[in-house]
């Protein structure tokens, strides 16, 4: 690989400097043995999307069961297994590793590096994730866990759930945890050390800022859940009593440890989504992000505060009022930087010239939807109000507004934005827009009404309900919505499958992007950059385009090949 360094960057026009060109390896062995961050990223994204479809199918089965009062489609055991699988899949096997997939592919490209800092460790992260997924889904053939994604003891103890489902869950948390931890260390080191010349912290793309924060949060939160599930494992099999109240242990200890991980996990899932939005919005508004520093600072502040609010998941537990007050005020504080981000995004659109590409639509859908999730979050932070709302469908609605309307819409924006870079072909805008509208409408039909279900007294995690009040009507509406949402996801799947082979050729920079990944051909070569450009602002591609325009106007000479392709697009 050509080790080009800063010597070349002083050259007036970027040039191709390649000492040796290798034919890219093909075939399945090349995928299994790869340490290329881009291929690992693709494997992450494909694998996690498969898990997304599995988790989605589980959700649809649950919605079918709940579409009628006193339905007998599913038995309670299956229903409990389904919501456990759904929650665990979406969190551990979809959103968190999907963000790692995007980060794997785009962090080195965005910071002007040729790979991650530790390419082999990177491959290990991916294979551990796959192992975690296999162990967990292997339990489908035996006994899947049925304790919810939170697996509270004593329910998750051996006395109440003796079969191996909980153990499979523990194993999954460990494997995906090590995978994420290694990945996080890798991202951190890569971002800290391998940035292009001139890319100081103040010129780091916002997506990279969010991945840096994501990595730090993972490093802080994962060891805690690892310890917690290990204690659960020894309670289950080796005679300890960490969570056993009858032997001096405490079930509340689990809740504290779990949520000390679980709440930062929420930000681990949503912050990279924020990062994608902060990259995509300025590109299609043709305007710089409004308040770059505030957006970056808000990311870090959210992460810091996110570590201090875990017990707002425990307002109904027997704990002192003083504790509740602390965690309520902490949760309030988070609303400030989150609100700042939303204001900054709206201000980014303000006075721009907005191009309604599918990626932008998903961003806007994200802002509009996430806002509702943020507002309902404030309701839940007020602990006396939370006493009525917690553990009801209001919470189910809230968390889906944040995670589905937040992270998942962010992920879809990322898919539509970056697909041309990954494959070299554009996704169909027509199908993309159909998918967006189906998903947006389906989402709100599914989840808006769930607030009312919760306010009407329907707790979560119940496999059946009596038809009191409007429960059956509301549930039916929600089920209909979930299938519209599912259809919307399916349209994107079709779009991706079609466009991989038959999409319109994208060229290196179809959107006139701001960040360095658009400086490479699509898909980028194995070494990413022949020349690493010097970064002079937050939007290096804008500078490069301007420089090329100036120079080609001045000299009339044909610019260097890489630069030329950038202009053609």
């Amino acid at each position, binding site marked *: 690989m050509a080790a080009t360094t800063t010597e070349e960057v002083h050259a007036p026009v970027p040039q191709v400097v390649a000492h040796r060109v290798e034919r890219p390896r093909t075939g399945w062995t090349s995928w299994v043995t790869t340490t290329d961050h881009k291929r690992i990223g693709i494997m992450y994204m494909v694998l996690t999307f498969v898990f997304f479809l599995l988790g989605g199918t589980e959700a649809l089965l649950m919605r079918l069961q709940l579409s009628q009062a006193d339905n007998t489609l599913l038995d309670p055991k299956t229903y409990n297994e389904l919501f456990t699988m759904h929650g665990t899949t979406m969190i551990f096997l979809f959103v968190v590793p999907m963000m790692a997939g995007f980060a794997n592919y785009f962090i080195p490209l965005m910071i002007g590096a040729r790979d991650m800092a530790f390419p082999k460790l990177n491959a290990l992260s991916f294979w551990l994730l796959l192992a975690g997924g296999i162990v967990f889904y292997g339990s489908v053939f035996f006994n899947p866990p049925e304790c919810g994604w939170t697996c509270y003891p004593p329910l998750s103890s051996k006395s109440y759930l003796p079969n191996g489902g909980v153990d499979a869950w523990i194993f999954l948390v460990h494997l995906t945890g090590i995978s994420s931890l290694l990945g996080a260390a890798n991202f951190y080191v890569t971002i800290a050390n391998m940035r292009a010349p001139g890319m100081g912290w103040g010129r780091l793309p916002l997506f990279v800022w969010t991945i840096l924060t994501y990595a730090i949060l993972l490093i802080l939160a994962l060891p805690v859940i690892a310890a917690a599930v290990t204690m659960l494992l020894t309670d289950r099999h080796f005679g300890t009593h960490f969570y056993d109240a009858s032997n001096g242990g405490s079930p509340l200890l689990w809740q504290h440890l779990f949520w000390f991980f679980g709440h930062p996990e929420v930000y681990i899932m949503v912050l990279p989504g924020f990062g994608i939005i902060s990259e995509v919005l300025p590109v299609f508004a043709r305007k710089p992000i409004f308040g770059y520093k*505030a957006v970056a600072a808000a990311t870090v502040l959210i992460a810091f505060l996110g570590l201090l609010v875990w017990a707002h998941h425990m307002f109904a*537990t027997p704990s002192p009022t003083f504790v509740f007050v602390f965690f309520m005020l902490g949760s309030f504080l988070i609303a400030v930087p989150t*609100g700042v981000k939303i204001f900054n995004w709206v201000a980014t659109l303000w006075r721009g010239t907005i191009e309604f590409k599918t990626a932008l639509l998903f961003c806007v859908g994200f802002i509009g939807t996430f806002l509702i999730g943020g507002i309902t979050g404030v*309701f839940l932070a007020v602990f006396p109000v939370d*006493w009525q709302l917690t553990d009801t469908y209001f919470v189910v609605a809230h968390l889906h507004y944040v995670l589905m309307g937040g992270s998942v819409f962010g992920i879809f924006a990322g898919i539509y934005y970056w697909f041309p870079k990954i494959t070299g072909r554009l996704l169909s805008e027509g199908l993309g827009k159909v998918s967006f509208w189906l998903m947006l409408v389906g989402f709100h039909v599914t989840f808006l009404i769930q607030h009312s279900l919760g306010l009407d*007294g329907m707790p979560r995690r119940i496999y059946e309900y009596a038809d009191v009040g409007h429960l059956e009507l509301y549930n039916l509406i929600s089920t209909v919505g979930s299938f519209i949402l599912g259809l919307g996801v399916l349209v994107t799947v079709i779009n991706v499958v079609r466009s991989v082979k038959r999409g319109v050729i994208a060229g290196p920079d179809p959107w006139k992007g701001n960040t360095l990944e658009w400086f490479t051909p699509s898909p980028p070569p194995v070494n990413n950059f022949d020349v690493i450009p010097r970064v002079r602002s937050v939007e290096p591609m804008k500078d490069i385009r301007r420089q090329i325009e100036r120079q080609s106007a001045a000299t009339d000479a044909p610019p260097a090949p890489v630069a030329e392709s950038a202009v053609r697009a």
Partner: protein
Amino acid sequence: MARTPANRRPRRLALGVLLALALLLVFAGTAFASAIVPESGGSPNADDISTLYKLILAVAVVIFIGVEGALFYSLFKFRARKGAVPAQIRGNTRLEVGWTVGAALILVILAVFTFAKLGDIRNPPNSGPEGLQLADGVLVAEGPAKRLPPNGKSLNICVNGQQYIWRYTYANDCANAPLSSPFSYQEMVVPVDTTVTLDINAQDVAHSWWIPKLGGKFDAVPGYTNHTWFKVPSKLAGTVFTGQCAELCGRNHANMTARVRAVTPAEYERWLDQRKADIKAADAAAQEERKKVEQTTP
């Protein structure tokens, strides 16, 4: 920024539309109250929670309309058109500090609302004149978590969650309740206009006590005792309040229902006497049965 009357007018119009929308929502809200506010009506703490919720909802509606309004306005107004040039604005420190402080202020207001209502939600009042006449003297020590009415008198019930049923023991000291204490399963009978304090615990896995019209949820966790209270107004004598376990407790979590039947104090005492008699009779019958078994097995 120069403000001409021409650009002030649309702003006023926008403000008017927003106000109208907010009012509309408030009226729609009263029409579909059950769909947008938590249940209440059975006890003052539930009512106070509902009031607090409505205050937050009012603030939330304004923010929601403001932000979504700004979002949709920008999307409509600033869509790409021929000849339109995007303004290359990178930020505005004054504006940004302004909305940060604004957001913080709104949260201060919400915190003030909460603290103003907190006492009424947490602390039980005295029983009313039409309630059960409770014996004098504090029978249960008030702890850091357990609140008693100012006069120290409440009807105490021990709530115990078990897979998949609730058990209620009518006793003042739950840890040392005499075995002869009256008890019932699933349906709790309480006198109206009487402050009822609950000591909530669980005997197997975690459960959560929740009767929506009587206030919030309180988790029943093995090894811990949780506390809450309610006081049903006297006009609601004869009402049955329903609820169910709100913490996943196993396969039949969905079927772990609870009922609270509010009756007049006289009816309550009759019911309690009947329970005592029934339990005594059942005990005696069981004793008979045991004797018979002992006699037949040498």
